């Protein structure tokens, strides 16, 4: 385990302490990437060491003051990795780390105490038993205090709010069992329960750690993308000098120069230049909107054609982008009130268990047993019913399901997401970018119209341009196996298109005058003008995906911000009911209206304009190509292009909840067997230890079946 970058001999007189820079490199995913990144950075003069953290998709670079951040970014760009210095938005704390130490202590103490307990069970007596109990107490009590802290803290928090959760019966059981065992040890009694108590804590901590590990892993991929620095803009001052400013440094009144193909970093009004803008991220509208001097343009929109100068009118917290973020923050609060299934189960479970324990105590006292014996029996009821298998029932099933989904390209960001997703009966699907790709794709029919080498000319022209239509055309023709012809004098005229010479003839590819919708015109000598139309194509497999959703009894509808004509077309093809031209706030309202009728709503969307709706719905899914906001707001993110991920995720969530319910039945059935024994006073620490491990193993084995069933 040596860092791949060797320390370099420091130059004479340069004994300054190295500076650490943490860079986010989202594209790293394997050993090869790690080696490339570490070696490339290590070779830079002045870099002391570079160490990749693959889980967090980050690299920690130690360097002296000869190296600055742009050098590192440039070095990584050369080998094909996009990198950004990390900005420290409140660093998401790892959920697993605080559980590792209690887990290790519980495991250590459990093993050692069990060793001593085995001797007691096999008949150690008199002073030997007393010695072993004392040793167990010396190991067990500090270990229980340390390893039980996560449960004590959570239980205390719930009790103080006057509610109850899973941890309340656990904490009561653990504390009473420990107190009884200490009493038995001091008075030289026959039975101590340190082994069972520690085993209980060990199993429960293992369940918690699994749950936390799942959340950490799924979040890491999404966080790596979110933690990239926000964009910025080229700001032109009165003297005409251009400087790059980060988004946070933009102020109203500044003039920013927006190149073609760039996104606007702030709201503003066009000062000079005219272009067309793609607002689909913000509104869902697919057709480009023209912008002329004096027109208002919004942050987040994409400049399609000509460079324009824009005077900033609102930046940072005042943009329409930030307004959407505020809507989302409010919408997310409703979801935090969701009560997870384990806590719901324990709300029913805890009162029953505590009543049984009290009944056992009162019953034995009434039957003439001593105070001490009645107390021992009541506590053994509490220990035997402590929700050990219940504690594993939910996390193990969810971890197995999340792992299986991850391998099929669906990231689950939160454990409760699967629980909420399983209950869904209505799905609202955004059009642009979700049902469709959200980018133009040339119409196959118009490509078929190209005769002879027209397609080769079109490819040659399109490949020289970064305009979205050209990029789409290049991609589509490349897929058809078209080869580009040789052209000379290729030039791009802003707003008009591409021209070039082919031999002595002029060929052009550019704006199609008079054509409605997205289209481009190809002129070649000796041929009529060819119009190539573009449409936002539906994702593949949409048909099967919708059929499978229907089979799952999920009613689908389209909810889009796009114009009525574009939405009606997709609605007609897919046969789904649709609402068009819906604003972000209206999407949220539509979800609230559905929820008011008793429906449980799934939102599938990608854009910024879907953010509030994604946060407000009972559960939400976003494609991996979604905006940062969409990915952050959604519970699940699917990385592939196929829409089949949506029914797959719902199916997996329902299968998981089925297994969780089976696990509950298994755990409770075990209690039904054990509780009468405990109430009859027949349970010894040995019986408790065996019963507890068997029921936990049963639950784990049942959950593992999920790995095979998720397709």
């Amino acid at each position: 385990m040596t860092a791949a970058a060797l320390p370099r001999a420091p130059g004479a007189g340069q004994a300054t302490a190295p500076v650490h820079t943490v860079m986010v490199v989202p594209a790293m995913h394997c050993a090869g990437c790690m080696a490339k990144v570490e070696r490339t950075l290590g070779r830079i003069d002045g870099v002391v060491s570079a160490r990749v953290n693959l889980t967090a998709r980050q690299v920690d670079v130690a360097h002296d003051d000869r190296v600055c951040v742009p050098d590192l970014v440039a070095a990584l760009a050369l080998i094909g990795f996009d990198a950004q210095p990390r900005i420290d938005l409140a660093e998401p704390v790892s959920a697993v780390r605080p559980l590792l130490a209690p887990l290790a202590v519980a495991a250590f103490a459990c093993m050692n105490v069990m060793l001593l307990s085995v001797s007691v069970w096999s008949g150690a007596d008199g002073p030997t038993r007393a010695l072993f109990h004392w040793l167990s107490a010396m190991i067990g009590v500090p270990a229980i205090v340390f390893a039980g802290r996560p449960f004590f803290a959570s239980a205390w928090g719930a009790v103080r709010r006057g509610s109850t959760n899973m941890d309340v019966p656990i904490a009561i059981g653990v504390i009473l069992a420990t107190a009884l065992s200490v009493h038995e040890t001091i008075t030289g009694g026959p039975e101590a329960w340190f082994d069972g108590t520690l085993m209980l804590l060990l199993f429960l901590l293992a369940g918690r750690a699994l749950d936390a590990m799942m959340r950490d892993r799924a979040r890491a991929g999404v966080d790596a993308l979110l933690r990239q620095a926000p964009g910025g803009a080229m700001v032109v001052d009165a003297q005409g000098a251009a400087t790059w400013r980060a988004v946070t440094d933009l102020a109203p009144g500044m003039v920013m120069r927006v190149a073609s193909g760039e996104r606007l970093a702030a709201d503003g009004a066009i000062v000079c230049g005219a272009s067309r803008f793609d607002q689909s991220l913000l509104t869902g509208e697919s057709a480009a909107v023209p912008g002329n001097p004096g027109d208002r343009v919004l942050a987040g929109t994409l400049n399609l054609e000509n460079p324009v100068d824009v005077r900033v009118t609102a930046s940072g917290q005042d943009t329409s982008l930030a307004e959407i973020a505020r809507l989302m923050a409010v919408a997310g609060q409703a979801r935090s009130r969701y009560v997870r299934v384990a806590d719901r189960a324990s709300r029913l479970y805890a009162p029953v268990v505590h009543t049984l324990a009290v009944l056992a105590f009162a019953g034995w006292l009434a039957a003439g047993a001593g105070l001490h014996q009645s107390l021992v029996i009541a506590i053994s009821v509490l220990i035997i019913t402590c929700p050990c298998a219940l504690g594993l029932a939910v996390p193990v099933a969810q971890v197995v399901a999340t792992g299986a989904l991850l391998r099929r390209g669906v990231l689950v960001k939160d454990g409760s997401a699967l629980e909420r997703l399983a209950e869904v009966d209505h799905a609202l699907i955004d059009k642009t970018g979700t049902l469709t790709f959200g980018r133009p794709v040339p119409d196959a029919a118009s490509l078929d119209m190209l005769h002879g080498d027209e397609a080769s000319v079109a490819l040659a022209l399109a490949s020289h341009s970064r305009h979205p239509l050209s990029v789409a055309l290049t991609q589509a023709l490349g897929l058809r196996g078209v080869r580009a012809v040789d052209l000379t004098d290729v030039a791009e005229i802003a707003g008009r298109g591409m021209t070039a010479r082919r031999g002595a003839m002029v060929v052009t590819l550019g704006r199609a005058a008079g054509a409605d919708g997205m289209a481009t015109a190809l002129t070649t000598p000796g041929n009529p003008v060819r119009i190539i139309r573009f449409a936002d194509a539906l994702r593949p497999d949409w048909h099967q995906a919708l059929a499978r959703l229907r089979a799952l009894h999920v009613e689908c509808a389209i909810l889009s911000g796009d114009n009525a004509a574009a939405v009606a077309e997709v609605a007609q093809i897919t046969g789904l009911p649709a609402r068009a031209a819906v604003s972000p706030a209206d999407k949220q309202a539509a979800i609230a209206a559905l929820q008011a009728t008793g429906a449980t709503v799934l939102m599938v969307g990608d854009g910024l304009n879907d953010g509030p709706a994604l946060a407000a719905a009972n559960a939400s899914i976003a494609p991996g190509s979604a905006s940062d906001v969409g990915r952050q707001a959604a519970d699940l993110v699917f990385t592939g292009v196929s829409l089949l991920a949506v029914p797959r995720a719902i199916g997996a969530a329902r299968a998981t909840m089925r297994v969780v319910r089976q696990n509950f039945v298994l755990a409770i059935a075990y209690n039904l067997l054990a509780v009468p024994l405990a109430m009859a006073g027949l349970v010894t620490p040995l019986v408790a230890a065996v019963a507890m491990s068997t029921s936990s193993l049963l639950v784990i084995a049942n959950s593992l079946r999920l790995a095979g069933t998720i397709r």
Partner: protein
Amino acid sequence: MTSLALLIPIALLMGMMGLAAFFWALRRGQFSDLDGAAARILIEDDDRDAP
């Protein structure tokens, strides 16, 4: 009994050593990148000067 008096402290001491080693590893960040640790085994160290 005399053997127990020797064996129990030895067993406890060895267990404590294991626990201490785990805590040391935890503090040194050995568990902060489990995916990376799994992938690192595949990196070849000796091709530093290869083209």
